[in-house]
């Protein structure tokens, strides 16, 4: 609809470590989605009674800014946001080695500044980078992307206008190395074959996004060697 191929992603921009006070943070632009994610922790559980003896408690809040949508959204958490907070947490928790931090919490905040369909998936992509930026041991990065159906055809990564006209939406979060799907939702109408096709398409896109995530981390944590150091390294190698 916007000139993309059926299986083409919208343009993505990922940036790691964008906030000063958070332990880890990341910013994503996915199409016209603009989303910030921040991680605090591992830190002492508060209130204490929520602590678990053998692992960290992971807490997650997905929230949309009042100005992020066409009509103003009330800042109070909606039922949709509460559900998404839960499914996003359940998609990221499998990647976190929370057993290393008993009696503590890892708090994850996702703020949607501008929404353009696929916010939960873009939120997961950025939140996973924020977790890595916070130095929390992860089994793997988690990438998110949705597939769907519009005009009877299975397509990747619906934008807002497409989503409203679309016949189905299938958000996925995926960890490529362990071949593991941590988030899967669907609404609309798909036949069994269409669903399988959309699933494969979404999983493929998650693999692409996963590579972009790794690049974003490298950009942030790539160590710049000055000329003297480079010579030194060259000498050692020689």
């Amino acid at each position, binding site marked *: 609809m916007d000139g993309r191929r059926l299986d083409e992603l919208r343009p993505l921009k990922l940036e790691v470590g964008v906030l000063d006070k958070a332990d880890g943070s990341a910013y994503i632009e996915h199409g016209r989605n603009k989303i910030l994610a921040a991680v605090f922790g591992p830190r002492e559980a508060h209130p204490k009674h929520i602590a678990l003896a053998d692992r960290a408690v992971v807490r997650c809040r997905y929230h949309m800014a009042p100005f992020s949508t066409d009509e103003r959204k009330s800042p109070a958490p909606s*039922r949709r946001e509460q559900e998404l907070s839960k499914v996003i947490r359940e998609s990221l928790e499998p990647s976190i080695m929370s057993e290393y931090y008993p009696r503590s919490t890892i708090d994850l905040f996702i703020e949607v500044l501008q929404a353009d369909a696929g916010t939960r998936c873009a939120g997961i992509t950025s939140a996973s980078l924020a977790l890595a930026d916070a130095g929390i041991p992860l089994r793997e990065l988690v990438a998110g992307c949705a597939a769907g159906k519009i005009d009877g055809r299975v397509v990747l990564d619906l934008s807002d206008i497409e989503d409203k006209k679309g016949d189905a939406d299938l958000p996925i979060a995926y960890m490529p190395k362990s*071949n593991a799907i941590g988030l899967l939702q669907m609404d609309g109408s798909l036949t069994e074959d269409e669903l399988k096709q959309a699933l494969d398409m979404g999983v493929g896109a998650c693999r692409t996004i996963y590579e972009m995530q790794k690049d974003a981390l490298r950009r942030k944590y790539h160590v710049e060697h000055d000329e003297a150091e480079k010579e030194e390294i060259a000498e050692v190698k020689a």
Partner: protein
Amino acid sequence: MSATHQPSPLAKLEQKTIYEIIVKGKRIDDRGPSDYRQLTLTLGTVEKANGSAQVYLGKTKVLAGVKVQTGTPFPDTPNEGILTVNAEFVPLAYPTFETGPPDENSIELARVVDRGIRESKAIDLQKLCIDPGKKVFVVFVDVYILDHDGNLIDAAGMAALGALVNAKMQEWELKGGEVRYKDSKIPLPMLNYPVPITTVKVGNSLIVDPCLEEEQVMSCRLTVTTGKDDDVCAMQKGGLGTFTPEEIKQIVSSSIQKSRDLRTKIGSKVN
């Protein structure tokens, strides 16, 4: 904010035993991996509701009631009636269900049931428009969990469907901008019959319709809701584990089959 749940109340040893039984391809209640529990559907148990249905799924008991009232339509759908689904995890159903505003579990359940009904276009909402942009019928579906022995989503979905099928509303006409009710009653304009099927993963085993103990040892679950043409209309993964794409495809295929069986069963009850 959504937080990691407190650990299962089952003793570790008990969990291990249940886990090992399932991984061997058996169930603690002697069912096979793809066997559904005994389903009993009773329609019209609450006379004051427009429609009601009680579902017994093994020892899980769920009651759903439908109320039809008038209201103003949403600005983006001026020609359509409104569907709202709400779920109450009533404190008498389970020791840790508490009073107060709905928690994330009941919100998730209500929204999954809602998506199944909405996305399958089970109700012809355009027929529930009275005066475009001004007045429409609002269909409230309230799901009451009465006894929790696992697989609440499926039980709630089928109770909601039963209550909608059972619902009767007063016949009406619009005269001079006013709604006039007639004496006769008509059923809700139903177009589809969505049935949710939940499968959970324990170890690498997939089992359908988990009982409570099985849910307490599962790594994750997947609910697939299918309509009458075998079209999938809603899905929801839950829990802290993960599925492989192959497992998901397998679950979708088996859920479509299972949903067909149960729809026939519910259909025979209704007609």
